[in-house]
């Protein structure tokens, strides 16, 4: 049909200027992604005005490659420093940091880079081939279906609770509770804000994330710095993962990319959610679940493939329907509007030349990521040669800058430090912060979509059963909960007895 437009897009991208911009954008994205608190969305918004003067192809290529670069960059700090550089790299910490403690940081970073590359490439191909087809799927997801997704996501808490289930539930419950702070969507009533205007918009989960992961890590580094033995990791192995490792991880990467594309498609969920879903599924499908959380490469590959696959996934509804799939793509949509292109389904037809340029830029940016990533990651590894005390101070400084940069608010810095101290107590008490982060991410989605569903369904719970998608997702959620309880074992008990001779 419009294969000519596809080719026009490709030739648009393949100019010296644009390739330079893609490389530059990817590198910039890597830097931004590696800094805790600086997100892809923020960098896109800052870069946007600069691209006004570029021609559409160059501007969009640069923005798209920045988005791709930032999606990988977050994992570098997550693996080396136990500080997720972006919210979507939080799941990478769970296995990435233990790996680097074991001196396998190079392997972890290499796997993360390759998983990101494959995830990004797959979503780029999905974008190129199936955008119009998949785009219409988005309209099937209303509040009712979104609620079911959030419920399914929350059940992950059960399987993420390392060690004690009770402490995992405590952490998750606290996260959900904290997510209710702020203005109630349906009544406009401020809840648990204590008339503190800075809390009206709720607690920004990025602020909580920085505090919960990074501050305890910095404090632990300081604690151990006089003991001589170095906690922070060195790269003692090579960066390029072995072909056999990649082959072994391929099913995991493919599955995680699929998860990333679908989660990216749905407006209201993004890389932060997708990475947890992918991690959980990788664990569910693994033969030896006990190695997760102690340094399992599959636990790095899954979230990283997923969060890069979100890029293309989120662009699918943006391009097919003019509905942004994530906050980052909302800014990319803004970039299109500045070029005089109004959001709508005619992006692929009337403005096909510009849109296909964007799609090709995403695909090329993933190749650029592989090149730039290899060089940049080697450089970033020199971080591990710095003494722990200095690293701890640098982490704390970055935390403060990052927390401030989100809303230019000193209040958020205080909030981050508060979460930091609480996180430090949690790490001492052996409570994992991961469920709390999931609660904070999914709590608002769940609550808002529940209230909307109740309004739409005239206060009847039946509304959830009228939607086939929601019903299936809720059944999956129920099975996921039951799996974490002894229920299935009880079911099997009578059968086992029958087999026994007595």
């Amino acid at each position, binding site marked *: 049909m419009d294969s000519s437009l596809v080719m026009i897009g490709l030739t648009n991208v393949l100019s010296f200027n644009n390739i330079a911009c893609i490389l530059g954008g990817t590198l910039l994205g890597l*830097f931004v992604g590696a800094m805790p608190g600086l997100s892809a969305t923020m960098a896109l918004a800052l870069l946007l005005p600069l691209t006004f003067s570029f021609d559409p192809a160059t501007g969009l290529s640069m923005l798209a490659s920045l988005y791709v670069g930032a999606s990988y960059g977050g994992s570098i700090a997550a693996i080396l420093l136990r500080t997720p550089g972006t919210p979507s790299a939080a799941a990478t910490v769970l296995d990435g940091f233990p790996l680097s403690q074991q001196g396998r940081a190079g392997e972890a970073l290499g796997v993360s880079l390759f998983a990101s590359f494959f995830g990004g490439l797959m979503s780029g191909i999905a974008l190129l081939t199936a955008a119009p087809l998949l785009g219409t799927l988005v309209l099937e997801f*209303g509040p009712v279906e979104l609620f079911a997704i959030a419920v399914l996501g929350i059940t992950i808490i059960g399987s993420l609770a390392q060690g004690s289930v009770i402490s995992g539930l405590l952490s998750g419950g606290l996260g959900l509770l904290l997510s209710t702070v702020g203005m109630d969507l349906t009544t406009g009533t401020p809840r648990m804000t204590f008339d503190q205007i800075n809390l009206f918009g709720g607690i920004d989960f990025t602020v909580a994330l920085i505090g919960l992961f990074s501050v305890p890590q910095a404090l632990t580094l300081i604690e151990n710095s006089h003991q001589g033995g170095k906690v922070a990791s060195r790269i003692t192995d090579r960066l390029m993962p072995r072909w056999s490792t990649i082959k072994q991880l391929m099913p995991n990467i493919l599955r995680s990319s699929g998860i990333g594309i679908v989660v990216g498609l749905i407006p209201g969920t993004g890389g932060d959610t997708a990475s947890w879903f992918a991690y959980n599924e990788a664990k569910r499908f693994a033969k030896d679940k006990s190695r997760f959380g102690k340094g399992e490469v599959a636990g790095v590959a899954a979230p990283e493939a997923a969060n890069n696959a979100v890029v293309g996934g989120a662009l699918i509804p943006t391009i097919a329907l003019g509905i942004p799939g994530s906050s980052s793509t909302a800014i990319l949509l803004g970039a299109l509007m500045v070029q005089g292109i109004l959001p709508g389904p005619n992006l692929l037809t009337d403005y096909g030349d510009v849109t296909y340029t964007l799609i090709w830029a995403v695909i090329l940016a993933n190749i650029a990521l592989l090149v730039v990533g290899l060089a940049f990651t080697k450089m970033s590894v020199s971080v591990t040669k710095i003494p722990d005390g200095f690293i701890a101070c640098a982490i704390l400084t970055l935390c403060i800058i990052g927390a401030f940069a989100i809303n230019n*608010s000193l209040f958020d810095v205080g909030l981050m430090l508060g979460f930091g101290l609480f996180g430090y107590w949690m790490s001492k008490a052996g409570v994992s912060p991961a469920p709390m982060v999931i609660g904070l991410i999914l709590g608002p989605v769940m609550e808002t979509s529940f209230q909307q569903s109740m*309004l*739409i369904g005239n206060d009847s719970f039946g509304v959830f059963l009228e939607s086939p998608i929601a019903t299936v997702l809720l059944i999956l959620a129920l099975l996921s909960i039951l799996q974490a309880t002894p229920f299935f074992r009880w079911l099997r008990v009578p059968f086992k007895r029958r087999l026994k001779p007595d």
Partner: protein
Amino acid sequence: MHAKALRHWLTITAMAISLSPLAQAADYVGGDEVTVLQGFKPGGGSDALAQLVQPRLSEILGVDFVNEYMPGATGAIAWTRLAKQSPKDGGTISITNTPMLMTNYIMNDAITYSTDELTPIANVVTDPGIVVVSPDSPYQTIEDLFEAAEQSPGTVTIGNSGVGGDDFFTTILLEQAKGLSFKKVPFQGDGPSATAAMGGKIDASFNNVGNVYGQVESGNLRALAVFAEKRLTSLPDVPTMKEKGVDIVAGSSRGYSAPAGIPDEARQQLIEAFQTLAKDPDFQAQAEKRAMNLDVVTGDDYRAMIEQMESDYRGIWESVKDEVGR
């Protein structure tokens, strides 16, 4: 540290771009640099307005504009700062979104600023309200929607951009004018509300023209009526509510305000700058390209517009607040 350097570099470059045609106009009494407090995140609608207006305003006034983003509490953090803690020398202004500017404190006692503490300078754009439904919707005309609401009150679901936003209040205005009752479903912004209508998850979405124009043009949404004085040139086939006998003109507007008590001369210079800007054909063309509906109202007229809205919306909220907080 990279982060800091990056932001610094971006700021410098952004400033260099905005300054490139060196300004040489009359001296602005408010200083060489004007800080613009932005109540929303960079990249949103307010930022888009700033990118359009400020480079041109900077040429007219001969000053640099520096954006300071302080998002949160639907703009209330920035507006509280503007009203209570900003120097009253004309060196600090803010983008003011109406009716959000007023509904913020009308609905929440904890928000303490009021429009009395501001000097309205100029409204720049108004995005008229519009009623959209899914293309598969049984409602072909606005009368169909009215009839459905009449037959089964409180069941027709109407999406809006959030409690306190313009669409929420427009829905109430319509209910009161026609004696109808809708089921109001709030979303987090105009986009999700439009998407829900597109997928048929709600019966209709009360939205703004700028957000849904592309979707209406391409047939993903059907427009039933606009809340404008006259039919829009961009959507000539869509009737106004006035034509349908409902006297409601509503939308979401963005303009600029300074704190109360700035020097008269600074106020006058700012107002004149906006009046000059409004006549600039290049500005008008750029605004049209970005689907922004210019509605420049300056000085006392902008104050009157704000005061009128304030009393209207206060009245509406008084009459419905018990029902909303059910």
